[in-house]
């Protein structure tokens, strides 16, 4: 085969593969990409730029944050990313003169870039580097463009260029600029005299070694010494946990240049040899991407459910909870359970359907302890009327992980609910400067100083009454669910939403003493409603507790025991029947362990409070 034809074929294959990568990325990760965009922020002002550039590599991060905005439309964001990858592949072919099958090696860098992106998983909640999703892509693209421009510089001009690129590059791109320095320096190999090549490469290494020290001593006074050689790179440390596995994709990105540089020097290899080598390396690349792709079903469900909640699409939250098409079904995390309960609560179906969905407390699959405060705390607190705690965690996370659109949105909403109008205005004004969230901000701006408008708004209607309770000094110790369970289950409220939450939380806590007065209050508050009936799960709890403590004085019928009162409460026949069936089945399964029973009972009784009460134990709330 003619070399130019094979170059064309492998270049085209590379191009097609990048397009396929984009399609797969979009189809599998669009919800995550949208969320990543929500966790980023770009404001087109002097101040934002200046704040971004107080660290080396800040300008790259700033530009990447700009590009990240476009994931508001995941299709557009992916298209731009794929466009950048295509450019990178083209530049690799051109700059390194990859001919014949070697042209296929141009796929290696986009593959590594894809791996950097799709491995992130729960780290999206902890990433401090603004615009990190675009950082490696932009950095590589800029390095290749510089290399392209520098190809024709020779001898001392190359050294001047090296100095220029290293100096400004480090300030603007951090350590990514060193790739540029290395690429420019290695261009001299084979083109210059050996002594000049050694001088150029030695000078490049000296620059890489010493320049950050110069910056440290004289320019950057906010960068720790050990971070000098990591400037512009994402940090994969949280508290005292180091997560080296996240760096593998970045190592792969660096290593991807090795076969490419090698190919540049082996232009004359046979088609077969170059073809086999290319296929081997690309295969390795594909294997690496598949290996690093974070496919955890619960993570993707959590992200999708959160996006749906923020769109007030409660039905979609429930559909996602049951969706089998998103990957292997596994027990849900507490975050998913809380999202599901919130959706049912908003739809007014929690009392009838709460246990119709999977229950569990699966830990998030991550190499560190993922906290609900970071993943879902703000959303949950906001929706349950705990606005000060929502605001607090926005502030804490904004300080620790950087400001984001999502945090500003919750700060706006929680400040509106607490009528902290002026600070809400501050955040609204910030969001109004963004490209894609101006409309959102203008919508919420209409509520400023207008509590009455908020009372009419579907989103605020259930939240406002739940946010009205007496002030006290408190703390959640970062345990969001436990805090809510404890405060609601011990709370009292005249509002229907609030009151029902106290009942639900008493049930989840399996606290009989707390349950009865809240059950009674629920009946009193609702009994005059047309077509009133006590939801099934509340009936099940009342029936079960009456049976469990027959001699306890009844709260529903003072002067009677529960046993006697049982006859007066008009339980649905099905509630009684299912309890009876449950107990009969329990006798049949007498010798089973609790774990065996959990599996055996689930098909018949998984949707009952009885199952939850007896068999869902030791769930780790957090």
């Amino acid at each position: 085969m003619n070399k130019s034809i094979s170059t064309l074929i492998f270049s085209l294959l590379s191009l097609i593969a990048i397009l396929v990568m984009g399609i797969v990325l979009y189809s599998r990760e669009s919800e995550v990409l949208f969320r990543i965009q929500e966790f980023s922020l770009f404001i087109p002002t002097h101040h934002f730029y200046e704040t971004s550039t107080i660290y080396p590599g800040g300008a790259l991060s700033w530009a990447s944050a700009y590009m990240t905005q476009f994931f508001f439309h995941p299709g557009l964001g992916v298209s731009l990313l794929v466009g950048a990858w295509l450019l990178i592949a083209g530049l690799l072919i051109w700059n390194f003169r990859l001919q014949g099958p070697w042209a296929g090696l141009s796929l290696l860098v986009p593959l590594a870039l894809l791996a950097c992106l799709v491995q992130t998983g729960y780290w999206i909640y902890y990433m401090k580097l603004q615009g990190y999703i675009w950082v490696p892509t932009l950095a590589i693209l800029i390095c290749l463009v510089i290399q392209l421009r520098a190809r024709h510089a020779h001898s001392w001009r190359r050294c001047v260029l090296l100095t220029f690129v290293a100096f400004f590059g480090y300030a603007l791109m951090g350590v990514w600029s060193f790739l540029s320095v290395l690429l420019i320096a290695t261009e001299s190999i084979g083109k210059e005299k050996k002594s000049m090549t050694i001088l150029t490469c030695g000078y490049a290494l000296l620059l890489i070694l010493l320049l950050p020290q110069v910056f440290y001593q004289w320019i950057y006074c906010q960068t720790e010494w050990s971070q000098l050689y990591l400037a512009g790179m994402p940090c994969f440390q949280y508290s005292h946990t180091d997560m080296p596995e996240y760096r593998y994709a970045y190592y792969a990105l660096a290593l991807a240049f090795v076969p490419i540089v090698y190919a540049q020097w082996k232009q004359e290899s046979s088609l077969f040899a170059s073809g086999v080598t290319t296929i081997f390396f690309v295969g390795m690349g594909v294997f690496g991407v598949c290996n690093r792709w974070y496919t955890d079903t619960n993570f993707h469900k959590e992200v999708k459910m959160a996006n749906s909640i923020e769109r007030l699409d409660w039905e979609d939250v429930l559909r996602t909870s049951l969706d089998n098409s998103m990957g292997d079904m596994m027990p849900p995390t507490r975050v998913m359970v809380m999202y599901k309960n919130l959706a049912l609560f908003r739809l007014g179906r929690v009392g009838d359907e709460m246990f119709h969905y999977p229950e569990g407390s699966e830990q998030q699959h991550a190499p560190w302890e993922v906290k609900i405060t970071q993943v879902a705390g703000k959303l949950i607190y906001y929706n349950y009327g705990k606005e000060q705690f929502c605001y607090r965690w926005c502030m804490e996370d904004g300080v620790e992980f950087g400001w984001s659109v999502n945090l500003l949105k919750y700060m706006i909403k929680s400040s509106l609910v607490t009528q902290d109008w002026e600070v809400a205005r501050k955040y609204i004004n910030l969001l109004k400067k963004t490209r894609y969230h101006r409309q959102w901000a203008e919508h919420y701006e209409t509520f400023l100083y207008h509590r009455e408008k908020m009372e009419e708004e579907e989103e605020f209607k259930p939240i406002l009454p739940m946010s009205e309770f007496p002030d006290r000094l408190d703390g959640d110790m970062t345990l969001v669910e436990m805090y809510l369970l404890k405060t609601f289950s011990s709370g009292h409220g005249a509002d229907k939403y609030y009151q029902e939450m106290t009942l639900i939380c008493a049930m989840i806590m399996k606290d009989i003493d707390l349950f009865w007065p809240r059950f009674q209050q629920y009946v009193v508050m609702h009994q005059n409603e047309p077509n009133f009936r006590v939801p099934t799960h509340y009936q099940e709890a009342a029936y079960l507790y009456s049976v469990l403590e027959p001699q306890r004085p009844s709260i529903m019928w003072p002067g009677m025991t529960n046993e006697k009162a049982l006859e007066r409460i008009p339980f649905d026949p099905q509630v009684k029947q299912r309890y009876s069936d449950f107990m009969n089945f329990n006798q049949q399964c007498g010798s089973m362990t609790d774990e065996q029973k959990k599996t055996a009972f689930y098909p018949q009784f998984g949707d009952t409070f009885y199952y939850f009460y007896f068999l869902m134990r030791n769930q780790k709330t957090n």
Partner: protein
Amino acid sequence: MKKIFYAAFILFLTACGEASLPKEFETFDQTANIYPDYVDVTVPQNIAPLTFHIDDEGDEYISRLSDGTSSFTYEGRDVCPEIRDWKRLKGNISVEIYIRQGEKWTKTKTFQIYKSKDEIDPYISYRLIAPSYVTYEDLTICQRNLESYEEDIIYGNMINSDEKDGQCINCHAYQNYNPDRMQFHVRQAHGGTVIAYDGVLERIDMKTGKTVGAGVYPAWHPTEKLIAYSTNHTGQSFHTQSKEKIEVQDTYSDLMLYDIDRHEVIPLENDTNDLDCFPSWSPDGKYLYYCSAHYEMPDSTNGLSREYCMISDYKEIRYNLYRRTFDLKTKSFGKRELVYDAAADSLSATLPRISPDGKWLMFTVGAYGVFHIWHTDADLFLMDLSTQEIRPAQEINSENVESYHSWSSNGRWIIFSSRRDDGNFTRPFIAHMDDKGRLSKPFELPSKYPEYHRELMRSYNIPEFMSGPVTIRPQEFASKIRKDSIKAK
């Protein structure tokens, strides 16, 4: 051809010159809404230009600043006078604002910026910190040239922090406005108190076991190499509903003196039931003012901790102002004297600071507690020390928080923290005081970009005047902080 080019270039330059005022307009009887609010404020001659943003909606804006002899016109919603223009405006400045809506121009009511002859110290320093509760990340102690917008970092924590070992920095203070004699604290990684004194830099570990802990809130003796501190055991809890968001309390706090030369901590009397805090020297160094609250545990606590009890009683803990005489020869303090019994008025007074001429005592007052920066009712009060007469400083107070304050070296300016902009982020405001103790309307620290403070997600903490900039570089501080500390005796 060249001539045509030059002519076109000159025409272009002319076109970029000052905007002309509209010839036809309607007059409006109200001043324009501008941010920051600089309407009728009094400023020192040597302050940087007051830039502002016009909040009123319009299609076009023209503003003119004039002092009778010079005038400058600006187009656009952001009015940003150049420093050289501003310096030429030596007298009181009249500000005219014209706003076009559609075809119609409106001239809003002219307002004044009064230029006082009293100069202000050229520098201030402050800590920039996000108003978070538990977490912190990027903390900087900064200095700002008041005559320009130049802001430098004196020391930032990130230079000595990583993910595993964070570092908190706080409580910068100076001896008599002297930037060569300063101190600040470093907590956690490489913790200690950094003291710079005429070129000598030390990091001191003040935990001696003689006091509750290391020194916290500092007060340099005006002339001697001595620093008084309160030493505090501080906790915080969160409001579930109140806009005040957080309650910071001391469960124990005492006073101590640190001798810089001898590296020695000298405790004052340690009464666990008296919560002494925020020391401040009189300008002659003969008195140490401070605030103190008395808290005794209830007889029956059912085993509850002091911290828990104090959280329950947080609204009952009120601070009074006291002072003690100081004998320089023996370095000993006299008995405490009550200066203001705030608790008797159901108030809590903190942060006493005396004017350099010794005539005025300014302090912060709230309904309860010690950490008034989170108390929306906190206001500044003034006591005339010759008559003991007390009054709220109404001219400078707002409906929101006013808290930390410090006097300029000539006693004519006060810089103070206020959250009046949005209730959450602290901004420094400056007000003029005349020789009769009358305060002018305060103005917000001017910024290069008028909306800078609207965008800034950090608070200004402890604004302090300085006679010049701190010249020690952050890297020098960082290097000293990494080295071994000196253990105080």
